[in-house]
């Protein structure tokens, strides 16, 4: 009963917070609400025995990405944005498209059938710790994708610098 209660709280908070994030006029408010949202998602991961992911959810998302967003917002002078309409002109169309998609997803969820189970049970994770189990699989079976992701990050760093720097030649 306790688990259901916790889930209900987290789910409700996540949905409400996400709606708030996309509807705030002031982007700073959105970012702060999103921070709260990410903590709740991290908590949800904890209920699913994924401590490591919960940790990086907080560290990477909340700690790095959101701070980046915040910096950019502060960098740009967005006073003008505060007065104009938040939504684009044909926003009802966008909303309709999103709701249509939701309808389809619910339809497909109804016919969802789970696949076969694996070996890594909750009991195993409890004895081995989540980080170790994830690390083992990441550095053996997924070593190449892992290395490639490092390249992606490197490219992203260079790309961000190139995009954001002022032009050297005028």
């Amino acid at each position, binding site marked *: 009963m306790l688990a*259901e209660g916790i*889930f209900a709280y987290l*789910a409700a908070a*996540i949905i409400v917070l*996400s709606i708030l*994030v*996309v*509807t705030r006029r002031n982007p700073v408010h*959105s*970012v702060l609400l999103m921070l709260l*949202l*990410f903590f709740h998602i991290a908590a949800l*991961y904890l209920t*699913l025995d*994924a401590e490591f*992911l919960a940790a*990086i959810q907080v560290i*990477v*998302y909340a700690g*790095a*990405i959101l701070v980046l*967003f915040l910096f950019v917002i502060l960098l*740009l002078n*967005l006073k003008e944005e505060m007065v*104009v*309409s*938040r939504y*684009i*002109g044909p926003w009802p*169309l*966008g*909303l309709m*498209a*999103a*709701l249509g*998609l*939701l309808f389809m*997803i*619910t339809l497909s*969820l109804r016919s*969802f059938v*789970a*696949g076969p*189970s*694996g*070996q*890594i049970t909750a009991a195993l994770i409890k004895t081995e710790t989540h980080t170790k*189990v994830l690390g083992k*699989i*990441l550095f053996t079976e*997924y070593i190449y994708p892992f290395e490639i*992701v490092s390249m992606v*990050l490197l490219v*992203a760093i260079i*790309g*961000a610098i*190139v*995009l*954001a720097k*002022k032009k050297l030649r005028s």
Partner: protein
Amino acid sequence: MIPLNWYLWLSAVVFIVGVAGFLTRRNIIIMFMSIELMLNAVNISLVSFSSFLNDMRGEVLVFFVIAVAASEAAIGLGIIIALFRNRATARVDEVNEMRG
């Protein structure tokens, strides 16, 4: 025990909120945050699959998604800065150079 479907429902709703935000908001920064929201929605379902099917692969995928999200945020925000520098706007409906 909470059924898997509940998590998936939650994920679907959060995803659709992200979609709706992306499709309707005018501020390009909020649109980026909507994208992060969608990625997180997918992460929720991946983690729940992983947990319910006793298989680590979903969580590995989440790990990669977070890495890509970080890259995407860096690049995207770089683009926003470049855009703002050139056009002095963060309103996406004013940027339609690609109009045919």
